[in-house]
């Protein structure tokens, strides 16, 4: 079985390295096919592993001793258990589809090969992250996906906005990673190991304050990667990357790494329910906060990005309240329908020559029937309508909140569900139905290539049916994760389901009704609340004024005053000394033969004189 583990892990790396050889070359179709095939192989072998893992058997291998210095010993090991295998299957499945999709999407890009190299490198890093059996391996994967995300957001680096967004994402994550590192140091300081099993076995012996610190620090890391408030600004800007990247990295996989960390460290968070409650509250806040921004945005991809933020909030509510398996379940279903939504948006973008403003679309159903159907399926799943996948996982989260008697959280999520339904269908209506604005603007949309559509059908299928896997999923992961006990009355549960479905349906109905008649008037845009939302609560401006500008001022001071005037001057002085000495010795070299001969004779003469003067001793 180890064989399958290594195949799963290293197949994407091999693909990435091969594609990297052709990175600077013009497009070679086979790099796309090869990397897709290798990621596909990775997916198949993780399916084999999924069948292998059960209540009694997990796979735990130690590849090698990696760092061993003094008392520090970090083996490089991997574990395939109920949690990591779910992540592995989800990651490789979505990755395979995104790879195939990208062959079509990146068709005319001149850096086609480079794109696949990066994309496969990302899959490899993500697999390291989820498969590692210790925190250091997780951290390496964590940084690896961060690096790949940076490379892919800035893939079109010649665009100023893209390289800015890439740097923003990278720096924002670095700040949060500092928190994560502190958590790791604290773990090592207190326990003396990074291995999950050893850490979780010994965590009970620690002072509860220490555990609280560890949990908080790790959560700061998770906040960065999962773009939770206040680190959320990078995710919307990350939409500068190619759309398949947004689908894979900034929706389905990497951003869920924060949730994965909380689930993986559930033994720690179980001990500190207060921190868990904070996590849940922040999650609920983000769920509503991000959904509200999605209500008014006009940028196709940003709407979906805010929706991702909001859904991550839902996952954190579940994880924070101790319903780890539900968080993981929502993570999985969300990966399916959100990547479908993004990839559909990619088709629309291509059809519209990279135009993203949904006000300029409308009526695209005529020309892009298949994409319209796929995106509608994804939107229904996102809105949480029975029997689509989102219904099962999202409803469970609302039940958890209610069960926990956290009625405020429940209410926030409840409102969030309504908003989700509204903005999803606002998007669908404005893009695919209504007046055909694009015709007026001279666009000639066309449907994507057939194989692209076929590649998306598995995602659509799973967006519909994945919810029915709930019971087997529950039974499977519960061997590793703590179960969550519902104490709710059956009838209350039913009432919640009815209420949530009702608000979702009314959100949809409202959106359909409103946008069928051309949407809101221009008057809405002058409302204060509209301005607040469209400007993202003025948070980017706040960051710019309160953090970036003072920081830039300090940096300029250090650069101009300290570095240039003190450090550089010292270094330059030493350099100039040698350089001037060079200029002087060069004068020996006049090129004049007589003077050259004179130098030789002078050399001998001086030495002879020295020999006599210094009266040598034997």
């Amino acid at each position, binding site marked *: 079985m180890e064989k399958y583990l290594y195949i799963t892990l290293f197949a994407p790396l091999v693909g990435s390295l091969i594609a990297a050889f052709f990175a600077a070359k013009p497009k070679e179709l086979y790099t796309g096919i090869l990397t897709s095939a290798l990621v596909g192989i990775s997916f198949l072998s993780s399916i084999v592993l999924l069948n292998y893992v059960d209540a009694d058997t997990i796979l735990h291998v130690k590849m090698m001793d990696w760092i061993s210095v003094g008392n520090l010993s970090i083996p490089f090991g991997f574990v395939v258990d109920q949690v990591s295998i779910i992540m592995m299957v989800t990651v490789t499945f979505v990755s395979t589809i995104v790879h195939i999709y990208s062959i079509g999407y990146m068709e005319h890009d001149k850096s086609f090969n480079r794109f696949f190299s990066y994309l496969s490198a990302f899959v490899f890093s993500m697999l390291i992250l989820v498969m590692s059996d210790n925190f250091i391996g997780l951290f390496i994967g964590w940084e690896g996906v961060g690096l790949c995300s940076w490379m892919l957001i800035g893939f079109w680096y010649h665009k100023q906005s893209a390289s800015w967004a890439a740097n923003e994402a990278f720096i924002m994550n670095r700040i949060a990673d500092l928190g994560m590192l502190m958590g790791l140091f604290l773990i090592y300081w207190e326990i003396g190991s990074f291995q999950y099993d050893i850490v979780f076995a010994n965590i009970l012996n620690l002072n509860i304050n220490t555990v609280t610190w560890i949990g908080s620090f790790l959560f700061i890391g998770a906040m960065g990667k999962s773009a939770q408030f206040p680190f959320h600004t990078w995710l919307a800007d990350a939409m500068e990357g190619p759309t398949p990247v947004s689908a894979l990295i900034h929706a389905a996989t990497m951003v869920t790494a924060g949730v994965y960390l909380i689930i993986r460290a559930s033994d720690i968070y179980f001990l500190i329910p207060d921190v868990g409650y904070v996590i849940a509250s922040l999650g609920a806040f983000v769920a509503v906060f991000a959904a509200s921004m999605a209500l008014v945005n006009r940028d196709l991809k940003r709407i979906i990005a805010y929706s991702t933020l909001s859904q991550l909030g839902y996952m954190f509510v579940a994880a924070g309240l101790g319903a780890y398996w539900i968080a993981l379940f929502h993570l999985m279903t969300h990966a399916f329908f959100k990547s479908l939504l993004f990839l559909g948006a990619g088709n629309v973008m291509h059809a519209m020559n990279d135009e993203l403003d949904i006000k300029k679309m409308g009526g695209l159903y005529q020309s892009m029937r298949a994409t319209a159907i796929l995106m509608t399926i994804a939107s229904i799943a996102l809105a949480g309508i029975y029997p689509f996948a989102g219904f099962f996982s999202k409803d469970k989260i609302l039940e958890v909140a209610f069960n926990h008697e956290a009625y405020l959280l429940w209410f926030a999520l409840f409102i969030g569900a309504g908003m989700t339904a509204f903005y999803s269908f606002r998007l669908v209506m404005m893009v695919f139905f209504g007046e055909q604005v694009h015709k007026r603007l001279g666009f000639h949309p066309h449907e994507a290539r057939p194989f692209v559509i076929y590649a998306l059908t598995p995602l659509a299928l799973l967006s519909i049916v994945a919810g029915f896997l709930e019971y087997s999923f529950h039974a499977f992961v519960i061997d590793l994760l703590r179960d969550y006990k519902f104490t709710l009355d059956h009838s209350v549960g039913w009432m919640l389901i009815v209420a949530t479905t009702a608000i979702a349906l009314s959100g949809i109905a409202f959106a359909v009704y409103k946008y069928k008649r051309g949407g809101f008037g221009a008057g809405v845009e002058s409302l204060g609340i509209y301005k607040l939302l469209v400007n993202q609560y003025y948070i980017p401006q706040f960051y710019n004024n309160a953090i970036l500008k003072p920081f830039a001022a300090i940096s300029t001071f250090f650069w101009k005053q300290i570095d240039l005037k003190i450090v550089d001057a010292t270094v330059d002085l030493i350099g100039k000394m040698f350089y001037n000495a060079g200029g002087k*010795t060069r004068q*020996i070299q006049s090129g004049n033969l007589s003077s050259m001969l004179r130098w*030789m004779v002078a050399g001998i003469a001086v030495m002879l004189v020295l020999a006599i003067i210094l009266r040598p001793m034997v």
Partner: protein
Amino acid sequence: MLEPISISLQALNLPSLLPVGILIVGAIFIIVLDLVTKSGSKSFYTMLSILFILLDLGVVIGYYGEARGMFDLVLVDGIAKISQIIVLVTSAFFLLLAMSQRRFQEFSMAEFYALFLFMIAGFQFMTISDNLILIFVGLETASLSLYTMIAMHNRKKAFEAAIKYFTMGALAAGFYTMGSLLFYALTGSIEIHEIANRVILNDNLSVVALIAATIFMIGALGFKISIVPFHTWTPDIYEGSSAALAGYMSIVPKIAGFVVAMRLFEALLNLNVLWIENMFYILVIATMTVGNITALVQEDVKRMLAYSSIAHAGFVLSAILIGTSEANSGLFLYWILFMFTNLGAFTVLWMTRHKKNLWDERYQHPFVKFKGLAKINPFMATMMAFFMFSLAGVPPLSVFWGKLYLISAAVNAGFIYLAIFMALNSAIAVYYYMKLVIFMFLMEPASEEKAIFTTNATPVLKVVLAVAVAFTIFASLFIDKILAFIIYHVTMSGF
């Protein structure tokens, strides 16, 4: 009446002269061939000469006879063997550079190849003897051939270089005879091991005279291996010669000079004359430092490499000062590694040789020529960058190991300050090597015309370049085997 001299052929040990004999016969053969037929082409003569060189190399490697021969004039010991191998391998590679795209007058003349073989024979004589007269004969044979070959490049600069080199060489020859004369006057011998023995036995020896003799020898050999202040010829001569010949001069005459210096000066340093040791210390450091800091301000890559080769020579000369087996082995190791890197660097220059001085009135290869080469010809720029990094001593490229080994030899022998100077000089050197890398990679090209950088390239040159770059990059893989071979031969001959 004189006694009839009877010598057995066995005592002459003729096989010890066989390698040199092959080259001389080969050279005469080429001249005769040229008289008989005028149709010999450039590649024919190149291949024929390389054939003789390889034959010679085979005999050198296969020689396991007596070390002494020809009335003790000849001494084929371990260091003679290693240095001959270096001379012959380097000669073969640099001779391949004659097969360039563009036609040069010297390569179309058979005399060039004959002179080339005579020159190698001269260098071999220098290495296989400890008799000052035979060494002198070898030295002059090689030098006279070399002067002529420089002049055969048929450019104004080349004539100037040949005349300068010849005149200064004459002065150095004067120093050499003066030094030999003093040694003979002091000890009655012209054989290095005898000189050392008799100095030890004779208590009434004038130390000042001994030192004077040493000084003249320093002047003479210092000219060959370009020790400061006898180095002034180097950049001008390199500038005037073709890049192929300049590269050759940076390696082969010096290794022959090093072997003689090693035989002579280590014998003298062993006498524990403090003055000689101090003088040497100063010369080594001066050579390294002056070479390096003058290289900083050069505007031409070939002149920069000339100064850099002075600095490398100073670096290696420290081995003779240290005098341990480890240091002597380090000298040969360093020179082998340096040889392949320099071969590569000069081959790149040679490939970019253009018939006009396009970039500068005076220089053929100014730094500005290489501006933005990475954009025009990334492959060539990357290769050149590898050679520059290697010369700068960046691990794991070849020259780094030589530097490491020599500096550790200095530390092991207690020459701490010398080691510090060696390290500091390596740091200074990084500046001018990186200067070229910066020109190539970080500047915008002046023109996008790719062809002008490969006007002189041929498949043969590309193969030479490939060998050089492969050796430079992968040296670490077989360095222990080379080192074991060197250490065995060096210790076998008592150095």
